[in-house]
């Protein structure tokens, strides 16, 4: 940590202050946020319920123009978007909050998929458990891998983590190929699904019917969002953002940075595993061909595009990254190129992504707002008082 004397001219200070005075500049999707914050609690809830209803209804509605058909089945496309959104929510914890570049996300995704396959597919010789149990199991196992990978790398500089995780993404795929028990390209068929049969005797959660899978995925996203939101508005979220902003300063302010980085990494890995298990269930088949390390780059693109450090942005980014190749099948082959270039362009011109919003880091943020309003009111009152006094003082000689 090299200390430097800040070279601050009065001019620079003036500039900062004038910028401060300018207040909030208009920004893309920023107005929404302002409007949202101005709403009362019940309005927010109402709005949320309407949005949620629309989200759940989406695959059934299959709206014109938005639909990915005839190229891709729309409900299944919706499911894939949901999976990407979930991935982005998890990766956002690592990249967006803690500022760690995790490029092995596809590996955790793969670990989750294989967990579901190993414990539900008839091709596996391990014990079998109901599919829904594999979701928490996948989360747990992926977390363990996350910790194993994080322990050696998180003490070091961020780039080590990036390249080690990038390598890990490829290694998992290779291991799936060369370890006999992972069955390489042959893979695992008939991965399990949640229970329930429709009236026609078909399982509700069938490979061809995306709608229930989509609903399941959206529900999982909501649960994860709530939990991540809890973390965000606590000392954990504050520690993450502090680490992202200035790791050394955070450590000196008493934040056990290594511990919180490891948590972020493990939580991210866990959500990756969870999404992998969901994905494996819907597709019903897992082999070594599905986990291209380039997909990790798409995941990062999802977070960065939406706006890192921001849950709404992550969901949006994830959905967009999944949607574009599904909707515009003509350019599907170029998706890695397109999103690779988008990454560069974004980082250079708009590093805050589409939805630029600040993380909410206090459970009692309203209390804080109220207190500050009190201060302002008090100041205004005292200023008025002074003005009145001055007026009175001026008034006397005039008479």
């Amino acid at each position: 940590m090299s200390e430097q004397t800040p070279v601050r001219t009065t001019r620079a200070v003036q500039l900062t202050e004038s910028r401060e005075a300018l207040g909030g500049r208009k920004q893309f999707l920023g107005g929404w946020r302002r409007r949202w914050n101005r709403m009362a609690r019940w309005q927010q809830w109402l709005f949320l319920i309407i949005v949620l209803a629309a989200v759940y209804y989406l695959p059934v509605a299959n709206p014109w123009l938005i639909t990915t058909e005839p190229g891709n089945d729309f409900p299944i496309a919706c499911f894939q978007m949901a999976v990407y959104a979930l991935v982005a929510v998890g990766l956002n914890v690592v990249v967006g909050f803690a500022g760690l570049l995790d490029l092995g996300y596809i590996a955790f995704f793969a670990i989750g998929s294989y967990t579901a396959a190993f414990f539900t597919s008839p091709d596996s010789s391990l014990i079998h458990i109901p599919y829904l149990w594999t979701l928490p199991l996948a989360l747990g196992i992926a977390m363990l891998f996350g910790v194993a990978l994080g322990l050696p790398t998180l003490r070091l500089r961020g780039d080590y983590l990036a390249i080690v995780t990038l390598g890990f993404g490829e290694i998992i795929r290779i291991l799936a190929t060369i370890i006999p028990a992972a069955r390489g390209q042959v893979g695992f068929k008939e991965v399990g699904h949640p229970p329930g049969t429709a009236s026609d005797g078909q399982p509700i959660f069938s490979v061809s019917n995306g709608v229930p899978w989509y609903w399941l995925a959206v529900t999982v996203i909501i649960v994860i969002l709530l939990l991540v939101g809890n973390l965000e508005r606590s000392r954990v979220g504050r520690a993450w953002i502090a680490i992202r902003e200035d790791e050394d300063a955070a450590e000196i302010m008493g934040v056990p940075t290594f511990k919180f980085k490891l948590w972020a990494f493990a939580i991210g890995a866990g959500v990756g595993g969870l999404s992998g298990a969901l994905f494996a269930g819907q597709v019903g088949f897992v082999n070594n061909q599905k986990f291209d390390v380039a997909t990790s780059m798409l995941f990062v693109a999802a977070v960065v595009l939406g706006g890192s450090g921001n849950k709404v942005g992550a969901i949006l980014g994830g959905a967009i990254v999944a949607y574009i190749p599904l909707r515009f099948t003509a350019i599907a082959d170029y998706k890695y190129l397109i999103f690779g270039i988008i990454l560069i362009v974004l980082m250079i011109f708009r590093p805050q992504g589409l939805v630029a919003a600040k993380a909410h880091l206090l459970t009692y943020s309203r209390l804080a707002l109220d207190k500050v309003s009190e201060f302002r009111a008090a100041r205004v009152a005292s200023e008025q008082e002074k003005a009145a006094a001055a007026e009175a003082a001026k008034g006397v000689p005039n008479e």
Partner: protein
Amino acid sequence: MSEPRDEKRERVPVENDPNLGAVPESVPNEGPADADLTDIGPDPTPEADTDVPDEAELAEVLAEAGIDEEVAEAAASEREIAVEVGEKIIEVKAVTVKFGGLTALDDVTFHINRGEILGLIGPNGAGKTTAFNAMTGVYKPTSGDVLLEGKSIKGKKQHRITRAGLARTFQNIRLFGEMTALENVVVGLDARHKTSVPGALVRSPRHYREEKSAVERGIALLEFVGIAESANTLSRHLPYGSQRRLEIARALATDPKVLCLDEPAAGFNPAEKDQLMDLIRTIRADGYTVLLIEHDMRLVMGVCDRIVVLEFGKKIADGSPAEVRADQRVISAYLGEPDDDAA
């Protein structure tokens, strides 16, 4: 890299908290000046501070700063207020720090007494910041030892040293730019919080308790340093003076035994420096021990009980302001340097 910092400011749109409307034209950048909003006037004799060397002076300070005891109490709620200048709270013993061939600190020994304001001065590059870094665990001393209340803290993790009671500010401001002023302070408060990650995940009762007290104490601390109105402003949007004050509030939030300030007045004008002096005196009056690095002689001489002088990594003097001012080596070390040299 100070240039990119400014560019960043320019690029990222200013965020405003909508609930508060637009940020007022001039956000206060001088703390105590607008402390009048705390509505209570001077409070001449706080009983708790009977041990303070100069009662009259303190009363004056408090009055000037417009800080009433209640606020000070809230800011320092969990500490006993004992301002006796007493036993050694920090001992720096024969510490040497080397960077490759360069010896930045050479066998430096000094101590800080509980309740005093110790000045650490010296020409540029003398090793003052390095001494801070060696004490707070940023650098591990090549040799020597650092004791906090008799226990060695050398080589301990930085966050542990902070929790052991040593907090600091940075010479080049290092706030968490994307956090509001209040959130910055709450990060400091978190050093004393115990909510675990699972606890936060399910929102345990402790979590709620700590969060609530964090907001209250955080606001009180901001009020203490005089920037409560900017509590919900992103710290990178704060004016420079408020940023320096926020650094102090954040360090105080960790509830330190010793507060180390690294050139807190750098870039301040004389009026702001006066306010800062008052603030430092108030902090001490609240029972904190203060270690102060500062170039401005007037400020140092005016506020410190004792001064340690470094030059080229060696300690060349240690004594009361009057003694130091009279010291021949100090005079020659500073010869040619203007008195009012603000980094």
